């Protein structure tokens, strides 16, 4: 199977969907002439022309709304945010328009559209450019939210998102674009709302999604050297959440760590813990431990940034804690 980058996997997904369906178009800042701020849409302008690969002004609220209007009358927009930090300026369109339109119109106007872009912290980008938004978006009924952690998942999930008749937020990892993985050529999709058991083990479950999948896998590798076998449940979609996959794993391992990039309070992990206590209360051998960003805006300072981020040592420590090993 060909090995390609996460970036190319995303690009292939959009390109193939645009070839397949001429209602699909890509709109956002720098997507056309500049080939995409992160080069996801390299070569698109040449192939599809400026009506389908649309450079916008810096006007997030405006072009998110243009996507909503176009979706309302039957097009299938893919709206790119240069990063999700800037999507806050557009959140009215995502939350008040896209997520509500079907319901408040009594089922008349669905929103077949995608909002996508990089999410979460990269390196030393400081407070305003280093944030993970999935718990905000996952809070909203009417939205679907996916956070692929591998190139394979990125392509399959993005294709499903584009074909979905609902507004889907795709949270890509800024630090993942250069990562590589096996991706089959041509068409395949991954159903939204289905988790993936990325590693099998029977001692402890790590529930995670997005960029933290890589950290969880590294932790599993490391822990295996000490004979600790970890189940890694990659949620892939954080709305809807695959509760069955979480519960099935925890029933097997009786212990869980929840790993995410965002902050603690009201995080996706808090919701996962709620499902675990509801469904696995009598089966738990230890309290669930969460790993997440420190409860502070992201500092620029290198050592402090490292201290703030969830990472491999913290994840390993959390697993050892729920195993009562330390």
């Amino acid at each position, binding site marked *: 199977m060909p090995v390609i980058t996460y970036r190319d996997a995303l690009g292939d997904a959009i390109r193939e969907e645009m070839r397949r369906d001429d209602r699909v178009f890509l709109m956002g800042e720098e997507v056309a002439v500049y080939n995409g701020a992160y080069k996801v849409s390299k070569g698109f302008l040449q192939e599809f022309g400026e009506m389908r690969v649309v450079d916008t002004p810096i006007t997030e609220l405006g072009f998110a709304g243009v996507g909503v*209007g176009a979706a309302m009358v039957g097009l299938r927009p893919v709206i790119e945010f240069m990063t999700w930090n800037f999507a806050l300026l557009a959140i009215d369109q995502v939350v008040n328009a896209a997520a509500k339109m079907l319901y408040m119109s009594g089922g008349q106007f669905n929103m077949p559209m995608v909002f996508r872009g990089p999410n979460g912290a990269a390196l030393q980008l400081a407070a305003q450019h280093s944030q993970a938004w999935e718990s905000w978006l996952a809070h909203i009924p009417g939205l679907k939210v996916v956070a692929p952690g591998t190139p394979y998942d990125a392509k399959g999930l993005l294709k499903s998102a584009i074909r979905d008749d*609902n507004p889907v937020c795709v949270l890509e990892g800024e630090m993942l674009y250069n990562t590589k993985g096996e991706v089959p050529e041509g068409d395949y999709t991954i159903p939204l709302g289905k988790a993936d058991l990325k590693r099998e083990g029977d001692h402890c479950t790590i529930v995670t999604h997005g960029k933290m999948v890589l950290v969880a896998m590294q932790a599993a590798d490391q822990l295996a050297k000490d004979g600790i076998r970890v189940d890694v449940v990659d949620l892939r979609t954080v709305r809807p959440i695959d509760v069955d996959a979480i519960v099935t794993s925890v029933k097997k391992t009786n212990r869980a760590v929840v790993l995410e990039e965002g902050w603690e309070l009201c995080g996706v992990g808090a919701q996962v813990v709620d499902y675990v206590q509801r469904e696995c209360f009598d089966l738990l051998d230890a309290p669930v431990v969460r790993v997440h960003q420190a409860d502070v805006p992201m500092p620029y300072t290198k050592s402090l940034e490292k201290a703030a981020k969830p990472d491999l040592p913290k994840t390993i420590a959390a697993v050892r804690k729920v195993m009562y090993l330390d």
Partner: protein
Amino acid sequence: MSPSTMAAAKKKPDTPKGAAKSDPALNMELLHSMLLQRRFEERTAEAYALGKIGGFCHLYIGQEAVSTGSLSLLRPDDYVITTYRDHGQALARGMTPRAVMAELFGRQDGCSKGKGGSMHMFDRNLNFLGGHGIVGGHVPVAAGVGFAIKYRGGDQVIICFMGESVVNTGAFHEALNMAGLWKLPCVFIIENNRYGMGTALERASAIHDIYERGAAYNMRRAQCDGQDVFAVREAVGEAIELARKEQAPTLLEVRTYRFMGHSMSDAVSGTYRTKAELEEYMKRDPIVLLRTRMQENGELTDEQLAKMDEDIKAQVQDAWDFADASPELPAEALYEDVYADTHT
């Protein structure tokens, strides 16, 4: 009457234009549309007082020439989008009084199955893309519909109604910039009724001829009298023609006035505007202006008017009875229409 004959009509202060070449049948339709909205809203106020309608509810009384004048010019395949003050436009676009009243009552035969209410009238068959509750939020959506029309190479237009307060929102500027930049077939109609809730335009906008804001977006702009249905038709007609033929947007400021409070909870006058001011504006009731013109032209007898009014009142009563009899959606509908089933 075509937009071009409209343009030729003579200007006369304080009476409707179009006297030179009057089309009695059309005038009758316009009058019917406006009077229907008026009588409908009067009963809406009554139903609200009786507790049959809940939540926020914004009446359209005083502004009927804007909806009727504008929407009487649209083709069925054109699009309309508006704010929460949407009952009049829904009716003027052709929704039945039954569907609108049932929506106000929150019943399943309402145009949005009762899930939208006063502020969220939608009708897919009429390309009526909703009443929207976030001030300014629907203007980029209108630009998106304009984009979609252009994307498909169609010759439809979208009319986007908004209150004058909208011009101070970021969404307005972002949308108009893109519409001007990309030449989208949008007609942006500002219904300048002078107040956003209790804030007069002069206390909210740095400029007072707000159509001038179109200059910033290299957009055709115009202003017209919103109490005169013919003036509205003339101005909107020109804008539609430009949008349809040249795919260029217009920012049109229509000067009107609301005769009622902002919503159902505030006094009609006394705080932010005087009774004297209200009475002055009410002298230019758009329905009275049209009716008088028609009577002067000999196009409308007292009997005809009385009959029309009676029929309309009966129709609105029928809508009320229909809405009252319509059930609320069953409990299981709570979870319906959150997500669409995907078929692609």
